[in-house]
């Protein structure tokens, strides 16, 4: 029993790292421009399909494929920002929520027409790893490792490079940073690009675990909301911890009640945290 519990917990935690990367993109965008990006899910799905297409048609190793996927994610983010978000950046929340949702509908609509909604999977296995009584697919371990690498990269970028520092300055106070000569529109576009890039990478990693369809981004978008709120909206490192908490819950809950109760627990927790501590478990009060 305990063995089983520990192995399902490990499984959940390894997944949690990847959930964390997806949520990091969402929380970065929120932190910099207080926009909730409802086009997050479709971008995750695009990341899955990008990796899939590069793997099946060009025979690229799925982990190498993540690099071009990340680059296109960044570019896509720029485009979305310029077309849909820039005009409503100072408007009430409703406008930016609906604008990003419109982008969501456009991506899903176009991709459903191209790819249909039939499930795909990346037929690439790394075998499995055994640690004592634990056995899990090696792809989970590589995925978690990739997630840690991405997080470290994001941290270094935000704290030790000029554009990263500019992003933090704009997140802190947009007007003051503009007065200091930071081109805020460009910084906002960069942050949005980074946010979608993280989503695309997370999608690519998830695609190496599970089969997926073009609609698969939706559940991960919802999980990202939960994680962002757990870790504190606008706190990218909190997102990783939030991801681990959610992954852990997904590992533990099925041991005590039917699997179908997992969403009830997740969203119940989500609403509870929003009510009790809207700044997140680790956010400043």
């Amino acid at each position, binding site marked *: 029993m305990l063995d089983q519990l520990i192995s399902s917990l490990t499984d959940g935690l390894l997944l949690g790292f990847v959930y964390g990367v997806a949520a990091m993109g969402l929380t970065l965008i*929120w932190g910099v421009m*207080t926009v*909730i990006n409802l086009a997050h899910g479709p971008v995750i799905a695009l990341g899955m399909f990008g990796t899939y297409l590069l793997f099946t048609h060009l025979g690229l190793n799925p982990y190498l494929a993540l690099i071009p996927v990340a680059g296109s994610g960044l570019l896509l983010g720029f485009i979305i920002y310029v*077309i*849909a978000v820039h*005009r*409503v950046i100072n*408007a*009430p*929340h*409703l*406008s930016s*929520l*609906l*604008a990003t*949702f*419109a*982008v*969501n*509908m*456009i*991506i*899903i*609509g*176009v991709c*459903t*027409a191209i790819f249909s909604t039939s499930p795909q999977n990346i037929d690439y296995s790394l075998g499995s790893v055994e640690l004592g009584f634990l056995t899990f697919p090696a792809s989970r371990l590589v995925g978690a490792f990739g997630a840690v690498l991405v997080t470290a990269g994001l941290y270094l970028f935000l704290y030790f490079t000029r554009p990263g520092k500019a992003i933090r300055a704009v997140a802190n106070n947009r007007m003051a940073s503009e007065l200091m000569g930071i081109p805020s529109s460009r910084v906002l576009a960069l942050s949005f690009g980074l946010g979608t890039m993280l989503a695309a990478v997370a999608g690519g990693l998830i695609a190496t675990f599970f089969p997926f369809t073009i609609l698969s981004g939706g559940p991960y978008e*919802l999980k990202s*909301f*939960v994680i962002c*709120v757990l870790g504190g*909206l606008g706190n990218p490192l909190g997102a990783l911890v939030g991801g681990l908490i959610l992954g852990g819950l997904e590992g533990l809950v099925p041991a005590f009640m*039917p699997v*179908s*109760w*997992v*969403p*009830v627990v997740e*969203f*119940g927790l*989500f*609403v509870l945290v*929003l*009510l009790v501590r*809207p700044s997140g478990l680790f956010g400043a009060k």
Partner: protein
Amino acid sequence: MKAWLKPGFWLPLVLVLGWGLVVLLLRQDTMRESAFVLLMSVGLASSLNILLGYTGYVSFGHIVFFGLGGYTGFYLISEQGWPLIPAALGGGLLSAFIALLVGLAVLRLRGAYFALATIGINEAARAFVSNFQPYGGATGLFVNFSAYEKYGGAGEALWTTFMLLWITVMVVLVVSFLVKHSRFGLGLMAIREDEDAAMVMGVKAPRAKTITYVISAFFPGVIGTLYFFKNGNIEPGDAFQLHMSIEMLVMVMLGGMGTVMGPLAGAVGYQWLRGYLLTSPLFKNLHLALAGVILLLIVLFVPAGAVGWVRGRFPRLKRFLE
């Protein structure tokens, strides 16, 4: 001037009244079905508008009240043998009661936090109902065919349901107008513009918001019962479709938020457009993408919606388009 003397009060009502009468006189089944869907959209969009348009709070999970009310009403009809009207009211009241409980907690949140919480509530409610055995779990419930006998057979029952929906929609429009033109409504609009300032000026914001939430949750509950009674079965996937919440938002935005006429125009316009896109051979694969493009264009360039735009452009028509 008394509210009921204004042309803006009568115009939407007369339109819906005339529409319903035409359908009842012609008595064609296909016409009734399409009118049913349209009227349902009008009712749902208008009740969302009472919250969204007047207080500026975005609810992404408004369909949850449609689902919960529908489930409750349906349960009362099929398992407890209640007649349709009390069951519909029961569904509405349960929705309103849930809204009261949820509202007391969640309406403390503002802006995007509130919007996120409503998404969470929708997902939690769907997951809960899928696991709640009295409501049939994941497979849902079915109406026993004999339930339709009371209304003179299934065919007649559909007409009765249509008439009830028609009346409900008119009630929603009246309530929407009365809220907008009352002192209470002015308080709500003050909250929409600046909640802190409104509270300083003596608007009891938490109470006003909760009452509004309860009102805007009651009608989707009633409409939900009618809709699922007409369908004859109910299951979690149908009852809690997040995209229907979004469609309600699009309808309100298309017509113009904060107006009585807007949701009516927006719902009819949206459904017409959707029908056109779904059936045209050129666009049928891309209808979702095109709907997205239209939504984006509205949000970016005409945020006041069709009715709001006309009101701003032709001030003389303001009297007619509330």
